[in-house]
């Protein structure tokens, strides 16, 4: 009765939706697992701090270098800071950060929970009435939902610093001018919506990874497979959801500059 990959995908997707439903039905109920939540937030933050810093720096420097040439040709070099801020804060920062985190955290969470499954640790939690869904899935997913926006703001900041550093080296731009032009066109609603949407991405990474780990059957080979599928699945869902969120936010808040 082996399922084809397509059937397996839809079976998994349906089951994943059930897990998401369960998350919303339970996360506000006892036990709250506050200490475990803090521990997971710390895990997420400490595992990803360096990674997001490097990512941000690279984004900022590369964007500035690539845009400068084009802008100079049109005599529009002055808008560079504002263009940089727009693309970093509105799109590149949130999405790249979330994708990088999906790779960094998704595989780890799926593998950790998966190996707890195959070594019967999840059964042990279950039998001792310790509510593994709360203890393992709710805590990790909430930790991602809280930490993704925070790490995204950090990535955005480092990217802007990187962009400024590049501008300074290339044209000796004054930082006051950089800052004032950078934030000229950006609206506070953009910052909130586009940073806030990474909370949704965090939710997806947490749920997909924990679901795939939690439902591992068999042995260590399956654990490796779950880790791989967590990264692929979470990344794809982030990209698809982003399309939906961007569309919605344009409908609600209007486009930049309109």
């Amino acid at each position, binding site marked *: 009765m082996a399922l084809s990959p397509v059937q397996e995908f839809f079976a998994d997707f349906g089951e994943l939706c059930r897990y998401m439903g369960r998350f919303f039905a339970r996360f506000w109920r006892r*036990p709250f697992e506050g200490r475990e939540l803090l521990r997971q937030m710390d895990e997420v933050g400490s595992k990803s701090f360096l990674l997001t810093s490097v990512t941000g720096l690279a984004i900022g420097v590369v964007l500035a270098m690539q845009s400068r040439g084009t802008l100079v040709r049109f005599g529009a070099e002055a808008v560079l800071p504002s263009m940089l801020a727009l693309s970093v804060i509105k799109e590149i920062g949130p999405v790249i950060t979330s994708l990088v985190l999906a790779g960094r955290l998704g595989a780890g969470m799926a593998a950790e929970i998966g190996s707890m499954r195959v*070594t*019967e640790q999840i*059964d*042990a*939690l279950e039998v*001792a009435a310790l509510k593994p869904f709360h203890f393992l899935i709710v805590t990790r997913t909430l930790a991602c939902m809280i930490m993704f926006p925070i790490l995204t703001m950090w990535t955005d900041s480092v990217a802007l610093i990187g962009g400024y550093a590049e501008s300074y080296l290339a044209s000796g731009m004054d930082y006051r001018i950089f800052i004032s032009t950078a934030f000229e066109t950006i609206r506070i609603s953009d910052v909130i919506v586009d940073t806030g949407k990474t909370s949704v991405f965090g939710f997806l990474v947490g749920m997909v990874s924990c679901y795939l780990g939690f439902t591992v059957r068999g042995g260590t080979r399956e654990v490796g497979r779950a880790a791989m599928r967590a990264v692929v699945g979470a990344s794809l869902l982030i990209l698809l959801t982003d399309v939906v969120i961007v569309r919605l936010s344009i409908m609600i808040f209007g486009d930049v500059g309109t």
Partner: protein
Amino acid sequence: MSQDPIIALRGVKKRFGALEVLRGIDLTVDQGVSSVVMGGSGSGKSVLIKHIVGLLKPDAGQVWVKGKRVDTLEGDALDEVRLSIGYLFQSGALFDSMSVFENLEFFLERHTRFSKAEREERIMEHLSMVGLPEKRDHRPAELSGGQKKRIALARALVLEPDIILYDEPTTGLDPVSVRSVSELIVRLREDLGVTSVAITHDLLCAEIIADEVHFLFEGRVLASGTLEDVRHAQEPALREFFGST
């Protein structure tokens, strides 16, 4: 019947895909009895005791624990029954992100109102019972197989449940530890009136702990009785099993 059995499986069937593991198990355990389940590797012993805590649900049949249908219970009602059951996993199943001490403390923290000092006292008492108090701050990964088993035993007992299920409590232990763990199991029954179901291949252990033995073969209980009865029965499957151990 003077009283209802505390654990009862009635006509329990379980299959995994094409593999029929349990084909109609009838088994009862009375209050305060130490019952042993024996049978060849892969005969479904672990699958059987997982039904008693509702980790597996039967395809057919009923599972009763303390007058409740475990196979139909869910959520908090099931958790309530589970709290009176201690379960020693065949693999130990220690939480490897926690130290030995934290493994036991986790259970107490969630299910008792003990103060920190009371928890500490209870934990050290149980670690001493299995002879490993000095391992309190070790991680499960730093323990030998037999040590893991004994810590897992301490964890299964730490809430002082009145039913205990042991999945091979003495596998991987040296003969001296086999004897001390077996004697611990007997003591729990004698001093605290614990009801238990133990899976074991170990004749020494079975000799020490068994009030009654159930022998599993081809998905059914082939023979029940005292260890002597089962050992000297004329069934070919039993003769082969005991002849080779």
